[in-house]
Structures are given as structure tokens and as C-alpha cells.
């Protein structure tokens, strides 16, 4: 049956076609839809979970793979940093059932903190990596990845990028899926318990094995060589290969070599593909991985070949490539005149900026505003974290002073306190991030006697990545209603000096809670509890009455996108307003109210 699916859907369906039994992951753009696709299809016999974080996902899946079942783990590239601890060791131990770790890279970066390259991680862990260039290919390649994983008893990385994950194409999918048979876990402490002796032995074995995998990859069908032999050739990986192909359609006669398995580098294949070539350009996003591998190969073999790419400035180091950038790069490389196909827009009027903002009615806005009001005139540091609420940095709220990585706000707030006892330190963390990597940080705060206030922005979902459930929501990916894990109980059990739960949309109570915490010594927490507006029904609509003196305080103070000016007068945009009521608590003349407020 043909299905038109997103790249992430293709990866999911490919894994199902490969008979995957256990699926675990943590949401992160651009990888989140993989697990969602599996849970939406009929997935009888497949175990699926959103784990609390990537490390947990990796370990859950590893156990399935130890048992001989096929296992899939999904995450975004920075998630792999979190999961790197188990992955490093797992690479030494190996697996029995096929285990594929999808780590989606994000050149640009479009929605990530870093432009890191998962291919480097594969090299670092000494495990194979597959690099698909399109959704169609991802569907087929993830099935191959499972085969190779089992053949060589090793976990395998699978590295799509945003343009593969979020592109749509039609895929021929099987009508029914069923997980493969598996033996179950067989005890063998010499195999499954990592000790220095085992690491020593397996390290040698892995390097020897990787030579064999490189040879095996040299005949892997997706590593391809197209076009007539030419003095100048192009070598590309990932979606850059698709861009190069598009350009060479109109400029034929150039050899195009495609690397689908960057590690272990298929040297035999590359060497034979570049026979007779004297100059080659490497097209790849993120790091110059293919380029460096090629240079290593040339150095070892004493080959004569000029290599250009990122290292000589022909290809930019940062940002993503595009069909246009590749056309420019290849035109320069091949000495073809550059075509400028876009019409000239120099004379275009100035375009309005549209930075991302918190949604109208978002409870985070109210939480930030309450802290800002309560702490007015005080010396403060506001440590932010990863999630929608990072957008609290925008004017007029301006409430995020730092943002580093998942969970870092909580621990950084402590560091700021230890370096400056005068400053009031706050950490803002979302509910999903709290479970993912905030809990250990708060224990650290209590143990090491920090003085800080934790603000948990609890909106009962993982909003940024598309509303996945988490331990606090009372639902899991097997469709079961489970006991909610209470953030309040956790914080109380850790022994905080104060834990207050408050509705952020009640401005007065929220300000009072912040002040109360500020006056208390030690580690305090406020749980601002109000659901994300994207998963709740609007509570009605605010109206601005005749009383309005058009002072625009409401607009200036909270920046809600539903507060707009029409012909110079402040108005509520009826399409956007959720009736959260925050603005009505700010207006100095009580001009904003709900139904009947005319």
C-alpha cells in the first residue's frame, strides 16, 4: 500500500517492516514523529515508550536487544549527548538482536542548540552509521541498518537530518507488521557485564571487525557511483547528495559518488570510484567528516588527489546546504558560469519580523510576569531551560538570562548563588524537562546548601515538540492511564524548605508566592500549574471597554500576541485570545473583562 509520509514516518514504518519489537525515545525536533507514527499505526506486539530521557531510552532498548529482539531508539542529536554514557559502553558489549539508534541531526541549526554531527559520534564509539538522503531511502536503509546490526552484533547509528525527517514522500509499505521472533535473555556474565578485561578484548575485536565492515560497506548498494569518469568529481552524503544530483541533471558528465555509510569509511569503494579523478569536492553538512576520512585515506595510500570542501573554504562550515548553495559551489568548482535564477529583490520594502513568541494565553507568560513583578528592583539571575519557555527571553518579558542544555538552569542557578551571595537566583524548568534531567539537579541544590528558587512551569505536556505525554500526565505510549508522578511530592520528599503550587493566571497569588519564597532561606520551589493553551479549550474571550485610556500598559508589559492596536486603539484579537485573563489583572483602569464587558 502506498502511503505519503514524512521522513520520520518512513523511518518508523521501515523499523516496523524490519520487525522491531521494542521502541523507546525522548522527543526532540526533528525526531519526534518517529515514535508517534509507530504508535498511530496498528502496532500489535510492539512495546513503545516515551522514556524520561535519552539515556533511559537507550538502556531500555539495549535490554531488548540483549534478549535477541530488535530494538529502536530515537532522539535528536543533542539527546545523543545524554545517551552517550550507555552508548559508549554498549558499543563494547555489543547486542544480540538488531539495535538501531536514530539520532536526527539539525543543520542550520533550525531548532537545536548545536550543529553537532552524529557521524562523529559513530566514529567516537566505533560503531557503524547510516546516512539517508531522502524519506524513500530512509525507509529502506533502516531495514538494512537492522540487518548489519545483527550481522555484526553491534548497535548501529542512523543519522537523518531535518530535511530528510521533515520531507514527505510516498512509500510502499507492507499491509501488516509483526515483530520478529526472539530467544529471550540468556545469562552470560562474560558477555553482558562490562569489566576492564572485557573492554580490552572487545576493543581489539571491534577495530578488527570495523575493517571488515568497511569492506562490506564497499559493496553496499546505497554507496553509489554515478556518471561518467571525469577529472573532477563530487562526493556527497545525506541530503547534499540530492542537491548535487539536482544540479548535475542539467550539468551532466561529472562523476557523483555518494557515501551512505560514512563510518566505517568504505575505502575500497571510494578508491575505485575515484579512479582517474584528480580533483574532488566534498559536499556535506555539519562537519567535514567525509572530507577528513578521504584525506586520511589519501594519506595512507599515497594517492594523488586534490580535495576541496569545508577545509579549504569551498563549502561553508556552518548552516545547512540547499540546492542553491550547492549549485553555486559546484559552478565554482566546475568552472561553470553561475546562474542567478532568482528575481532581484533589492528594492523590496522592509519586511515585518516574525520572531517566535509564546502563544496568546500561554500560562508561561503569566509565570514569568509574576516573578518579574515580585522581584522588581532586586538583583536577580533568571536561568532558563529547554522548551517553549525559552521564548520568555523575548521583549517585553526579558526573563531568560541563560539557557545551556536540558536541566542546566537548576544547577546553574546554584553556581550563580555560590559565586554571588547577593543575587536572587531563579531557575525556570518545564515539567517534561524536570523529569528528564531536573531531578538530580534539585537534589544537588539541597545537598550543597544552595539558596535558590525553582519555578516549575507545569503545563502538563511536552509542548515544544508536539505535546507528548510524560510521567506527570498520567498517560503513556501504550495507551494506558497510569498514576501521575507528582512533582510536588518529589520536591517535598527531597526536602526543600518551601514548595508552593499556584495557578499562574492568578497574578496576585503568584506574586505573593514568589515573595514568600524570596523571603525564605534555602532551596524553594513554586509549581506554576496551568495547562498549555494548545491542549485546552479557550475559556472565552476578553473585551476592552469604553473605560480604556489607551495607555497601552497591557501591551507593553506582557506582549500577548492577542493584544493588538487597530487604528491606534488597543484591541483584543478575537481569533487569538484564550481568555486567560492576565491582561485584565494588569490594566490600571479595569477596562479589560470577560463576556458582558462593553
Amino acid at each position, binding site marked *: 500500500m*502506498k502511503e*505519503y509520509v514524512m521522513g520520520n514516518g518512513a523511518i518508523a514504518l521501515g523499523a516496523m517492516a524490519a520487525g522491531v519489537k521494542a521502541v523507546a525515545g525522548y522527543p526532540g*525536533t*526533528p525526531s519526534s514523529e518517529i515514535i508517534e507514527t509507530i504508535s498511530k499505526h496498528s502496532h500489535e506486539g510492539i512495546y513503545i515508550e516515551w522514556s524520561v530521557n535519552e539515556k533511559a531510552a537507550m538502556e531500555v532498548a539495549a535490554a531488548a536487544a540483549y534478549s535477541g529482539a530488535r530494538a529502536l531508539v530515537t532522539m535528536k542529536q543533542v539527546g545523543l549527548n545524554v545517551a552517550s554514557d550507555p552508548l559508549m559502553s554498549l558499543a563494547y558489549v555489543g547486542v544480540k538482536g538488531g539495535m538501531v539508534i536514530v539520532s536526527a541531526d539539525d543543520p542550520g541549526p*533550525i*531548532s537545536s542548540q548545536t550543529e553537532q554531527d552524529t557521524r562523529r559520534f559513530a566514529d567516537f564509539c566505533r560503531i557503524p552509521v547510516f546516512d539517508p538522503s*531522502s524519506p524513500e531511502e530512509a525507509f529502506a536503509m533502516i531495514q538494512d541498518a537492522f540487518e548489519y546490526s545483527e550481522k555484526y552484533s553491534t548497535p548501529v547509528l542512523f543519522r537523518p537530518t531535518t*530535511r530528510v525527517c*521533515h*520531507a*514527505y*514522500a*510516498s512509500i510502499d509499505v507492507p499491509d501488516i507488521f509483526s515483530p520478529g521472533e526472539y530467544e529471550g535473555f540468556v545469562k552470560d556474565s562474560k558477555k553482558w557485564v562490562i569489566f576492564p578485561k572485557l573492554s580490552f578484548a572487545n576493543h581489539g575485536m571491534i577495530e578488527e571487525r570495523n575493517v571488515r565492515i568497511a569492506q562490506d560497506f564497499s559493496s553496499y548498494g546505497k554507496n553509489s557511483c554515478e556518471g561518467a569518469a571525469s577529472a573532477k568529481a563530487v562526493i556527497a552524503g545525506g*541530503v547534499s547528495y*540530492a*542537491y548535487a*544530483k*539536482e544540479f548535475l*541533471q542539467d550539468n551532466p558528465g561529472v562523476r557523483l559518488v555518494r557515501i551512505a555509510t560514512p563510518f566505517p569509511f568504505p575505502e575500497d569503494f571510494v578508491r575505485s570510484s575515484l579512479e582517474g579523478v584528480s580533483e574532488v569536492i566534498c559536499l556535506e553538512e555539519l562537519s567535514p567528516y567525509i572530507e577528513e576520512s578521504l584525506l586520511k585515506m589519501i594519506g595512507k595510500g599515497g594517492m594523488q588527489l586534490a580535495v576541496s570542501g569545508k577545509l579549504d573554504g569551498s563549502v561553508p562550515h556552518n548552516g545547512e546546504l*540547499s*540546492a*542553491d548553495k550547492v*549549485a553555486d559551489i559546484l559552478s565554482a568548482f566546475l568552472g561553470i558560469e553561475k546562474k*542567478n*535564477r*532568482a*528575481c532581484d*529583490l533589492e*528594492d*523590496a*520594502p*522592509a*519586511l*515585518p*519580523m*516574525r*520572531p*517566535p*513568541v*509564546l*502563544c496568546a494565553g500561554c500560562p508561561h507568560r503569566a509565570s514569568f510576569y509574576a516573578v518579574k513583578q515580585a522581584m522588581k528592583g532586586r538583583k536577580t539571575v533568571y536561568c532558563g531551560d529547554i522548551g*517553549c519557555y525559552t*521564548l520568555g527571553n523575548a*521583549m*517585553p518579558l526579558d526573563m531568560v538570562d541563560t539557557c545551556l542544555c536540558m536541566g542546566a538552569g537548576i544547577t546553574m542557578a546554584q553556581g550563580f548563588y555560590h559565586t554571588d551571595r547577593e543575587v536572587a537566583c531563579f531557575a525556570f524548568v518545564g515539567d517534561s524537562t524536570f523529569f528528564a534531567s531536573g531531578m538530580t539537579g534539585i537534589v544537588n541544590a539541597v545537598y550543597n546548601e544552595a539558596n535558590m528558587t525553582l519555578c516549575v512551569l507545569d503545563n502538563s505536556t511536552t509542548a*515544544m*515538540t508536539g505535546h507528548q505525554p510524560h510521567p506527570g500526565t498520567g498517560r503513556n505510549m501504550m495507551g494506558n492511564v497510569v498514576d501521575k508522578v507528582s512533582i510536588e511530592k518529589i520536591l517535598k520528599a527531597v526536602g526543600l524548605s518551601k514548595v508552593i503550587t499556584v495557578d499562574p493566571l492568578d497574578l496576585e497569588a503568584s506574586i505573593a508566592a514568589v515573595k514568600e519564597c524570596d523571603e525564605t532561606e534555602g532551596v524553594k520551589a513554586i509549581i506554576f500549574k496551568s495547562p498549555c493553551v494548545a491542549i485546552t479549550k479557550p475559556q472565552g474571550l476578553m473585551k476592552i471597554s469604553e473605560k480604556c485610556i489607551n495607555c*497601552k500598559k497591557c*501591551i*507593553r508589559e506582557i*506582549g500577548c*500576541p492577542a*493584544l*493588538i*492596536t487597530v487604528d491606534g486603539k*488597543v484591541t483584543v484579537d478575537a*481569533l487569538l485570545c484564550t481568555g486567560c485573563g492576565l491582561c485584565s489583572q494588569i490594566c490600571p483602569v479595569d477596562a479589560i473583562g470577560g463576556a458582558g464587558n462593553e
Partner: protein
Amino acid sequence: MNRDVMICGVGGQGTVLASKIIAAAAMEEGSVVHSAETIGMAQRGGSVTSHVRIGERAQSPLIPLGSADMILSFEPAEAVRNLAYLKEGGIVIVNTTPVKPVTESLCETGYDGTEMLEYLEKKCRVIAVDGDDACSQLGSAKFLNIFLLGVAAGSGALSIADETLLGEIRKRVPARFVDSNVKAFEMGQEIFNVQGETEDEAQ
């Protein structure tokens, strides 16, 4: 036949559904289709684009500059923002109703879309339609996407049969909204007919 169609607008305007319907309808008619959407942080009140690439030629999911046969823009400034994608002789279908940026109320630039529309008229072939007006006749801003899809279909530049598009609309919108959406689509087609004449006059 190869066609590149870009759909653009502001997050929340319903561009994704329009692009899905175009892609699905083209596939239904036997074409190979690739497409891509803006997903993630950029969705929230930000500029969004969908690239729909129909035909064997497209190797990558994003439309190269100067290649789009049609830009279907849900907002005047977004049409200008993406104009570099339009190919020579391509057509821009644009909703004249501006979406003011959220920052507008803070630092009033006076943006109201007119400058953008004038610029578009100068640069390329434009069909400008008042989406706001159409939606108020239809009773909800929710129908903007299907109305604009109707305009795109009416222009003939999509080269997809109306019935195929309507078939996909019926499949993809909730049952109780099918009738209103079909009406929105037809209204889009009709508006084009009236506008087509004025466009001829202008030429």
C-alpha cells in the same frame, strides 16, 4: 509535468493542510510528489513555508530559488519574503489581509500590507484576493486555506483537476465541515473568474 508550488504564510493560518491537499491530489493523479514543511519553533507566529514539488525532476524536498511555478501566499509580506523562489513568468496568488507581526503593537511600524501588494504588482503576475472578506462571508477564518486553494485551482496554474482536489478536501477535513469547505473552495474559484477579467484589463 514538473511543477513547484510554494505555499507560505504565518504559523496558524492553515498552510499545512493546503499543501497536503495539493500533494495528495497530485499523487492521486499519478505524479511523483515531494514536499516539506516548516516544523518546530518557527511555527509559533512565525513565517512558515511549504514546498510541494510535483514530477520526476525534483530530487530534493526544497524548491530552489527562481523555480516555483506558483507562490500561494496567505499573507502579503510573506509573498514578498519568498518571492525569490518564483520563476520567471510564475504566478503569485496572495491574500490581501495582512497579519501584523506580534512585535507590531510594541514598536509600531505601520505595516498594513499595501506596500507589499504594490511591490508584488510591480514584480510579477499577481492574483490578489481578500481572504478576510471571503471568510466573513463563510462565517469563519478557518476556511481561509481552502478558499485560497480554490483560488489556486481556479487560476489553472496548479494543473490538477478540481474534482481531485475536492476529493482530497472531503477526505481530510472533519465530516461536519465538508460542506462549508467545499463552499469555500468554490468561492475561491469564482472570485478568480471575476478577478481574471480585471487582470486582463490591467494588462
